[in-house]
């Protein structure tokens, strides 16, 4: 029954695991992209309006407080099972740190710098695009990184509502507890997500370095 060792199991299911990992990474990346577009936009719109910023931050943090299983439960009646509710839920969870770091990053730009930019005749938009966003970028990307790690884990739960990715193996292992390969299935999914998290960490470190001005070290 429970005969196969973990490494033997890995060798035999290598292809499947890789495919699941790619699926998992893909849904996370799509969600991150959506969350980044929304989060950075909202951040740009609100960072100079404390009251508005407080409201959007409060909403994003309320979303994050809703347990993921409950949020999936609420999305099913609206969006059905599968890919769609997964992306919506993951984007919603990814929103807070991206939004907050965008606001923090933009606010932490030295006023002397924006003032001198203004003094040189840069328009508000030019200031934002050429000065403020590049200076805030390291902080923003740190927020995206944190969100990525967060939703990599949450994506595993999405598998229960027919979402894609490695979570599927954890649940199928769970459903055949005591049966052959149940532990292997769970471990495979679990470790697969941790490996993905490490890969994402590395990618973000590289991306951060490549996209940050050298002057900001």
């Amino acid at each position, binding site marked *: 029954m429970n005969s196969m060792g973990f490494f033997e199991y890995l060798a035999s299911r290598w292809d499947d695991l890789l495919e699941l990992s790619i699926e998992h990474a893909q849904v996370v990346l799509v969600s991150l992209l959506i969350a980044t577009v929304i989060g950075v936009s909202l951040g740009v719109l609100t960072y100079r309006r404390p009251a508005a910023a407080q409201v959007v931050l409060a909403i994003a*943090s*309320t979303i*994050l*407080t*809703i*347990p*993921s*299983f*409950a*949020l*999936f*439960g*609420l999305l*099913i*009646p609206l969006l059905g099972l599968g890919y769609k509710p997964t992306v919506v839920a993951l984007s919603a*969870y*990814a929103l*807070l*740190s991206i939004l*907050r770091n965008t606001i*923090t990053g933009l606010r932490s730009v030295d006023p002397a710098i924006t003032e001198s930019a203004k003094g040189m005749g840069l328009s508000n938009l030019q200031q934002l695009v050429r000065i403020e966003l590049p200076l805030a970028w390291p902080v923003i990307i740190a*927020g995206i990184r*944190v*969100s990525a*790690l*967060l*939703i*990599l*884990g*949450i*994506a*595993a*739960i999405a598998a*229960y*509502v027919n979402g894609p990715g490695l*979570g599927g193996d*954890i*649940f199928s*292992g*769970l459903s055949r*507890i005591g049966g052959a390969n*149940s*532990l292997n299935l*769970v*471990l495979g*999914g*679990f470790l697969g*997500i*941790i490996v*993905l*998290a*490490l890969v*994402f*960490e590395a990618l973000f470190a590289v991306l951060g370095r490549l996209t940050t001005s050298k002057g900001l070290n």
Partner: protein
Amino acid sequence: MRSAEETRDTTLAEESWESPQTPETGGPSSGARKGSLLASKLVRYLTMPLILAAVCVGLYLWVGSLELDSIEQRSLNREVITEKVIRHLEITAVATLVVVLLAVTAGVILTRPVMRKVAPYIAAVASTGQGVPAIGVLVLSAILLDQFGFKAAVAALVIYAFLPVLRNTMVGIRQVDPSVIESGRGMGMTKTAVLFQIELPLAVPIMLAGIRTALIIVVGTATLATFINAGGMGDIINTGIKTSREPILITGSLLTAVLALGIDYLAGIAEDVLKPRGL
């Protein structure tokens, strides 16, 4: 579910770290500002309970207007829901209590001068816990303990929520102004007295933020305890999904969300109340 919630406590920690200056330094507008501060505080205190109450009332009215079939009736009755809520709170309370005891102790030990050399390694190991899927921790905990149910769920939640409390305890103690500790020692306070009378009280705001984060992680992740037969609110949601009954699914999900937000709200108030004055 873990890492982003952690960003909340880290940010809090950094905020109180970097802005020790007090906003109330007087000035002509300080009276007016205090007034509007009070108003915004009031709004903050009242908004959430009002929203949550509205959701509950709406849900009650909606479910009441439905013709429930026998499956729905089996889940959507007072006894079942009360039992699930209590179970959920039990899991949450026990796990949070254990986390606080263990992680605060560990944080205190790791910030003692004796541990200065090893602390960074232990902290690094602890923080690799980021990005670990909660459901995986729960299932593995059940398999490894060879026991499905309450204990496995609590064990998993403790592991899962350990880091924010540990880290905030360490950050909280480390950010205490060394000159305050030195003046305490200089007046002849013992190391223990300094720990309990100076370091820990001054670390409390940051520790509380970490504990609140842990509490939210626990209350949210406890929803998944249903998968290892530990009960709680997840049971209702799960029944809703399995039986494809939207009233059950929506009721379970909404009540779970209300429970989590309510606990977060109460934790926020506790944070404000427990914070030592003068900080």
